[in-house]
């Protein structure tokens, strides 16, 4: 069964005809070519597929794309502007919070949402915010440091 949906992806309107059984992750990667969003466990356990839906982080593998109809989606591709990395991306770079990079899009988007809601989070609040995103390289220390470096 096909359905026509409208997404606002990184500020740009996209009208797509999709199969209703496609997840938002599949639509982003396969129909829109936005492969910055990663497919990890595909079961909502690892956070690699994190995108922002109306500003809130969600696991895009666990959401049918038809349920995102009419909503705004931010992916990692939407952060850098004019060849300039977003300040969160820069901080992750500088603090060594990036190794293999597979968790980074999710970690960075979760950080964006956290800092928009709470510009001055405690370390405990930072840990809570990234609790759904698994990183197998860094041991999280540098990621938390990178986020802390963005707190005034």
């Amino acid at each position, binding site marked *: *069964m096909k*359905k026509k949906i409208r997404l606002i992806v990184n500020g740009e309107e996209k009208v797509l005809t999709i*199969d*209703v*059984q*496609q*997840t938002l992750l*599949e639509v982003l990667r396969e129909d829109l070519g936005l492969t910055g969003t990663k497919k990890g466990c*595909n*079961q*909502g*356990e690892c*956070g690699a597929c*994190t995108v922002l*839906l109306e500003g*809130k*982080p*969600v*696991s895009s*593998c*666990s*959401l*049918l794309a*038809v*349920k995102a109809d009419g909503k705004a989606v931010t992916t990692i591709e939407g952060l850098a502007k004019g060849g300039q990395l977003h300040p969160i991306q820069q901080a992750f770079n500088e603090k060594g919070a990036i190794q293999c990079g597979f968790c980074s899009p999710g970690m960075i988007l*979760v950080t964006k949402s956290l800092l928009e809601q709470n510009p001055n989070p405690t370390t405990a609040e930072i840990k*809570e*915010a990234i*609790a*759904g*995103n698994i990183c197998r390289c860094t041991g999280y220390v540098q990621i938390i440091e990178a986020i802390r470096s963005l707190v005034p």
Partner: protein
Amino acid sequence: MRLLEFDYFEAENLEDAVAHLKKYNGSCQIIAGGTDLLTALKQRLYTPACLVSLDNIPSLKNIKEENGAIFIGAMCTLEDIINSELVAKKLPALKQAAWEVGSPLLRSLATIGGNICLNTRCRFYNQSSFWRSSREKCFKAGGSICHVTNKQESCVATFSADMPPVLIAYGASVRLIGPKGTRLLPLRQFYTDNGRFPNEILTGSGEILTEIEIPTPSSQTNSTYCKFRLRNSIDFPLLGIAVLLILDKGKFCKDARIIITGAGSAPIEAVEAREKLLQQELEPQLIDAAAQIAASEIHPMRSSFVSPRYKREIAGVVLAEALEKAGGIRE
């Protein structure tokens, strides 16, 4: 793993949704948040011909207090529950339990109704179709053997939802709508204690859970939820205990409720441990005694990744912690 094809129907009202469920005669399911359902569909645990979405029914997203009761719409997300001032003030243990479910990425999608209707889980069942194909089909998957007990008569999958124990402790009821009309059922009676078909809806009643009704707790009510799992995020509970105490003068136990999740095929009430607490002053010796009793009241099976004996040990520890928290003895 991709999802198989299905039809998708966005109901405009509840009557519409009920009629649609009936039309497909058992091969149609409700999708709420979908976070648990999508994984189950990818694992081919169910293969519905149609999913019915309730996203377009705004009345299912209300949280309100009226005439001494709190009403929560079934489509409220766990994040809505966490952010509700009413819930934080009147039902603090419910907020706590919502906060302990999954991860922030799932709580923004997952609903309270979905959590109440969560299917039981088993290490032999919640696996990919490839993994499961190496064994005979188990009882829960429609076969004729249980790999946990090696017996043929029943399924012992574990009830693993976090919200129901707290809701039962608060005395919640659920409103269901189906082909025969609507009914209000105490949440405890919604569960069948049958591992294969653990609740009224999964027995195939064709009903939809629409609302949760909770009598507003009195000012003497102290409540908490303690969840035990190997990681402090993402995981289902290995064991979770909701405790509600009605304390007089801050210490004298006038009433108590202890509801345990993760220890059987339904939420379990620790009746004897409760008896031990009644009309007593809450102090460390009494708490230890009640914790020991509760540990002997559960009969967990090896359907999760830890042994039944381990779960019984943990039950005592977690209950002691919950009683101390609810009684204000520890933070």
